[in-house]
């Protein structure tokens, strides 16, 4: 999980992703950021996140992103 927090920090260093339970509501990620984050996750973990998974619910907090990665066989 720390690796995931570090990855997000690398993308958006202005935010502390460990203190929020809802990145969307707190203005830390918007729908366009999700598109950019997916590209970074794909590249970092060598996966290809399907479009059907690019929904706000999967990017709400560190737990939901970790669960999404788990689906692709990644343990962040």
């Amino acid at each position: 999980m720390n690796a995931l927090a570090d990855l997000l920090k690398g993308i958006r260093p202005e935010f502390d992703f460990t203190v929020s339970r809802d990145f969307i509501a707190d203005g830390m990620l918007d729908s366009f950021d999700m598109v950019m984050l997916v590209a970074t996750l794909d590249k970092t973990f060598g996966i290809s996140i399907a479009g059907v998974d690019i929904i706000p619910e999967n990017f709400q907090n560190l737990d939901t992103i970790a669960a999404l990665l788990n689906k692709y066989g990644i343990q962040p």
Partner: protein
Amino acid sequence: MFLIDSTSKVAETISQTKAGAPAYCSNFLPAPRKLQGWITHGELSCEQRDGAALFLRKDRGFWHLYFCAANPTSLQQAVTAFPVLRAEPVVVDLVGQEPALAGLAGLFAAAGFGLYNRLFRMARIVSPSTPPAAAPDPHVVLASQADCQPILDLLVRSFDCRAEQIPMLYEIEAAVETGQIWMARCGGALAGLLFYETQGLTSTLRYWLIAPEFRAQRFGSGLMRTYFAEHPAVRRFLLWVIADNNNAIAKYRHYGFAPDGLVDQVLANEMIRP
């Protein structure tokens, strides 16, 4: 094509398209409040095809196209087979990192769409080393309901509604209601405005505009100063700018904005492009 009458109908249509579709593609990412406004005002229609849903939003004499598709092939078939896309003026926005947009842009090119304009996103990140915001300009005030029509007139006069998503009057009225529009007056006239949307730690600067006859009189800097000063908790300011508007880009850079890698390719069909 049918008129969308509820947000649940939109969700249901998207879910049907997404179901079991690993290559799902979409440019339909509306904020819930915005979506509700379109539906309430009868602006949103939908055409459902095999494996794809095409949403058309009515604007000023043209349509915005949004899509959800199980895969690019389904999207291509839907776009090619839908006659409205050849008979009516239509624009479609493709948003993402530029290299990733090539496939979709090619698909729309095959259906008669071409590049109409290009915008990119700029961000201003507030860090501990960022100097504190200067004091707000006392001449800058929040817009009132009486200002809505002049604000709309100035926006329509100044921007390209096909590329720059000019709000409808009801959206301006709602923004004024929640204090999202600052304005500068000169002799009773609307000299300039700054229209923003804030969500938590991020604020998006939608329009920052000075009427031509009031330029070079420091109204613009007063508006920007007030905007920053009134958002001490915001850590990221965003905006979209036309890619070749060098004058605006230079001003935004002056205030600390820099490109963040996202682009918006605005494509238009042959009813719009010369």
